[in-house]
């Protein structure tokens, strides 16, 4: 058993319920809604218990609407859990919102928290004031940033003028500026190109190593998880599905790749044909036919080669298994 002071975050049986108004239809309905007491309860987070030791990078995964954001909001003190115990750095976040805010850093997707019209260096100076960072610590941190990424060209740019990648980079640096114990990164690499993704992953890894910051990383991108996390927690529909080493999960799914092909004509019909030809699960959307290939059974290139004989393939992509597919597999086969 670990002592609780060694844990950055402890959650025990956390439940979060929301009351949602049952909306009625039409104009008359919306007027009635103003006075309605007709609520139903929605459980966004259902009995989650987790202990996160200091200094770890945790991958927090789940499809949209799984309850990831709600959990993060409870950890940051924005939301109060309906039931259960939560301790962040040894104190209850929603009761000590300000104190908790001093010890955490947050990057929420593409919503930049920096001052839009100010040059980055001025945003940093304001944060220095807000978080009461000493001159010495501030300089030391800036030097660390300089040693990790080339920030000089960014410092005198306003956030407004930055590309998405530069903005994300700046936001991540800003979240680490006051040397918090925990940093929450919500989809930090969403919408970025491959080289920027790699840059950001390297940066997060280096900051974690240097400052022993605990990092809670929510993502859809298995690439992020692969590069950064040793442990992952998966939730779906508010429930915890998986909490273990990533190696454990990879042993189970590591041999899976998603092969995506594009061809002319009705994709659904093509998908139907392919289903008969291969022994894997096949799905189609408007653009791509996706085949989840288990490489222990057959190599991806062999599958592709076989399909080329029977179909006119115009384009192809190879992807790591997605979070959604992993969750689907866990439901279907369990993790043992």
């Amino acid at each position, binding site marked *: 058993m670990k002592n609780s002071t060694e844990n950055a975050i402890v959650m025990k049986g956390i439940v979060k319920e929301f009351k949602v108004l049952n909306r009625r239809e039409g104009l008359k309905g919306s007027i009635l809604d103003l006075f309605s007491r007709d609520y139903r309860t929605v459980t966004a987070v259902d009995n989650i218990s987790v202990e996160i030791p200091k200094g770890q990078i945790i991958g927090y995964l789940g499809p949209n609407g799984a309850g990831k954001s709600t959990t993060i909001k409870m950890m940051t003190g*924005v939301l109060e859990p309906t039931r259960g115990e939560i301790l962040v750095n040894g104190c209850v976040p929603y009761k000590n919102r*300000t104190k908790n805010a001093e010890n955490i850093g947050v990057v929420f997707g593409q919503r930049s928290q920096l*001052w839009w*019209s*100010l040059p980055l260096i*001025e945003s940093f100076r304001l944060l220095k004031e807000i978080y009461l960072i000493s001159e010495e610590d501030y300089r030391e941190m800036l030097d660390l940033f300089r040693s990790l990424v080339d920030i000089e060209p960014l410092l005198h740019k306003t956030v407004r003028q930055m590309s998405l990648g530069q903005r994300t980079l700046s936001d991540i640096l800003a979240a680490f500026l006051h040397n918090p114990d925990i940093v929450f990164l919500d989809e930090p690499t969403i919408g970025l190109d491959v080289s920027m993704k790699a840059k950001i992953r390297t940066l997060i890894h280096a900051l974690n190593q240097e400052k022993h910051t605990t990092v809670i990383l929510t993502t859809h991108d298995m690439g992020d998880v692969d590069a950064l996390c040793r442990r992952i927690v998966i939730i779906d529909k508010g429930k915890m599905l998986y909490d273990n080493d990533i190696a454990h999960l990879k042993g189970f799914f590591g041999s899976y790749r998603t092969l995506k092909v594009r061809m002319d004509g009705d994709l659904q019909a093509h998908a139907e044909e392919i289903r008969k030809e291969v022994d894997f699960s096949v799905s189609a959307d408007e653009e791509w036919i996706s085949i989840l290939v288990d490489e222990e059974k057959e190599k991806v290139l062999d599958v592709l080669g076989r399909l080329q004989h029977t179909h006119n393939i115009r384009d192809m992509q190879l992807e790591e298994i997605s979070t959604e597919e992993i969750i689907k597999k866990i439901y279907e086969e369990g993790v043992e």
Partner: protein
Amino acid sequence: MHRSIGFYLRIYGKILVQDIKSKMSYRSDFIISTIGMICTNIAGFVSFWILFQNFPSVDGWGYYEMLFLYGFSLVSLTPVQCLFDNNWSLRIYVYSGDFIKYCFRPINLFFYYQSEIFDIKGLGQLAFGIGTLIYAWAKLGLPVTVLMILKMIVFLITASLIMIALQNAAAATCFWIQNSFYVLDLVFRFKDYAKYPITIFSPVFRFIFTFLMPIAFIAYYPSLVILRPDEIPLLSWLSPVIGLVFFYLSYKFWMYGAMKYSGTGS
């Protein structure tokens, strides 16, 4: 770690300096909006002047008294314009879910949100209002004593607080309803009536403008203290208290909405 009023003032000062610097760098935008503000003020004044060419007095209020009221309302509306302009964007942040980004800092949420925008255009209105006030003051032959000036400052602050309170409350309705723009717009249209003596309205509107949507406190009741020292109603003396109470209530209402909001929306 303790964050005092001094801390907040220092932060505000820094944001302000940076914001003005960055606004100046968009030079044409700055010049055009300044010209726009000057035109608005001149147009407002011209319509006021034309009105008085036809009606030499309104309900016993002479030209210079009315001018005083006009200048008083311009000055007292400046703080809400300059310092609380971000209230206009609140519903957009709330609707898109971007409001969450303000919730993670270890400082007061209301302060943090409002401090983000300083609307420099309001300063033109301030200069115009002060000019009008001084002119009317001189023409009315009002005494220039320390006490009078002190009273003036106290009542200008009072009036500003009431307008800020009205706007805060109107903006905060967006935490509950979707079309909150109309509420905010309504309040801002009514503020135009602040520059008239309340006695010209029917009893129903007098009641509304005093108690429900207290725009009479933006210029009329406070001005009486300076203009008509012999017939000051109790409401005038009470207005500083009313201003503080209204501001505090609107702040609480705003914060209550903000806390409630963060519970929903992802």
